[in-house]
């Protein structure tokens, strides 16, 4: 790396994701909790909300290395952050060593680790050899991991998030190759490239793979179908993994790891606050987040229908103020409520 530019962020006990994964049981009497990457949705305001509720490590959405190293508009659209956005893993979609090394050079000063996406099942990415295509290309994936770890050693943490194969031995072989290449930890999503998310996650597969690579001393994070803390414990107990990553569960309830069964109203107030303070989100994206959170809270159906028909952000703010008590930062009780604080004329 050229010394005239910022170097990889210094890793300490506070922000080194591998240290956190390995020590959470001793320091917090529980396994590590991770908010995984969601296409479009793991933007900065949402990441910040998750951090309020016992999430140890948070991922960005997948960023395409090829675009990021070549195009300033892609850089502006894909990644925003700030000093409180840590520990942070930037997830990358990549199909060659050169793009990955260049991406790491640009991004590592502003995050605490890089995760290679080897799970995205979207056809357009798979045809490019990106995402879940990589679990069928172990030579390339291992060479990418090896190139980064050879160049940076322990200065940059590198993770791979994989899906399982139809034949689990193939996944074990892949994991062994990744361990040989120096990967810091592996996240296993318990579905194959073609399994629909409506089908339950295969915890037996995660358990099988975790046991087979136990001797490698590379932590395994289990991912899939974690919707509350009982799922969290069940997944840990069943698979023997070192931690759990939640993704869809957090979209509905970012306070999941805080022990909340449904999204508390306070999380929604925090989300409004961060979204507005960080510069807004595209209206449809903002609406989808609110739709998911309010769905988890059991919002009355006619109000939910009204919500989905709101066409811009200012009307959305008015709709919230008309129907609910939406507290702003600095107001007494901000971010503390659990149930929906309906105004009297909106009560179901």
């Amino acid at each position, binding site marked *: 790396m050229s010394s005239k530019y910022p170097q990889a962020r210094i890793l300490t006990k506070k922000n080194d994701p591998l240290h956190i994964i390995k020590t959470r049981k001793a320091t917090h009497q529980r396994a590590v909790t991770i908010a995984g990457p969601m296409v479009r949705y793991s933007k900065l305001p949402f990441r910040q909300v998750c951090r309020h509720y016992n999430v140890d490590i948070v991922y960005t959405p997948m960023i395409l290395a090829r675009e990021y190293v070549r195009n300033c508009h892609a850089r502006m659209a894909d990644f925003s952050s700030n000093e409180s956005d840590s520990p942070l893993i930037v997830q990358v979609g990549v199909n060659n060593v*050169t793009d990955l090394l260049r991406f790491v050079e640009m991004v590592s000063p502003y995050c605490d680790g890089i995760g290679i996406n080897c799970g995205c099942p979207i056809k357009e990415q798979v*045809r490019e050899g990106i995402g879940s295509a990589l679990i069928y290309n172990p030579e390339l994936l291992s060479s990418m991991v090896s190139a980064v770890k050879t160049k940076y050693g322990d200065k940059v943490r590198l993770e791979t998030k994989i899906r399982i194969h*139809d034949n689990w031995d193939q996944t074990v072989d892949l994991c062994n190759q990744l361990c040989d290449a120096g990967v810091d930890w592996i996240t296993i999503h318990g579905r194959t490239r073609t399994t629909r998310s409506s089908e339950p996650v295969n915890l037996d597969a995660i358990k099988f793979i975790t046991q087979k690579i136990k001797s490698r001393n590379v932590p395994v994070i289990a991912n899939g179908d974690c919707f509350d803390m009982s799922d969290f414990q069940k997944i840990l107990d069943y698979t023997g993994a070192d931690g759990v990553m939640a993704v869809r569960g957090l979209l509905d309830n970012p306070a999941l790891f805080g022990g909340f069964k449904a999204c508390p109203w306070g999380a929604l107030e925090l989300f409004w606050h961060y979204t507005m*303070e960080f510069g807004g989100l595209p209206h449809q994206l903002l609406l989808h987040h609110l739709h998911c959170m309010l769905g988890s809270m059991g919002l009355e159906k006619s109000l939910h229908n009204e919500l989905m028909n709101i066409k811009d952000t200012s009307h959305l703010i008015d709709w919230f103020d008309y129907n609910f008590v939406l507290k702003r930062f600095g107001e007494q009780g901000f971010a503390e409520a659990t149930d929906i604080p309906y105004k009297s004329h909106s009560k179901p």
Partner: protein
Amino acid sequence: MLRNQVYKQTSMIARDFAKLQISVPTAADGEKYSSTASGRPNQSVTKPVSLDSSTGEVLVRKSTGKTKVRKGQTAEEFERQCAQFFDVERGPVWTPVGWMTTRDPLLTLDTDPSSDLKIKQVRQKLASHCHLLYYRKQYADCARLCERLLSRFEALDNRKKIQREIDELHYMLERCRAAK
């Protein structure tokens, strides 16, 4: 100079590769693991062919089955991007709490040549300042900014295309005036 020539030659070779319709291997090729699924699974999973490891140029497969060259990036071009990213952009977009109120948003528009109101993202960024003031119930400030933005937005040529954005600014302006 020499590197550029080599790069051009490599690109030409790559284009010729594409014309030759060389097949890009798939995950189904050389599969050592048997599958319980019928047929040849994972035929659509591309294994990119590296054409030039120094630039990251690769050959991939399009949905039609034809090959496509993804052009590489020379070391010089990457260096230019690094200089732009680290020296001009100062890293990724950095947005701590309070950053939106430290500077007049229209001042940035008038001083930064890359800020062009014809670009949707630029307009959205400006509107997000109004949203913040509206959300914070700072109605007088919000009304002032809406007025200033409206005078700029309404002067644009493609007004019809941004009518919804103009309508929202008018809506906020009216609501702010009523609340003052």
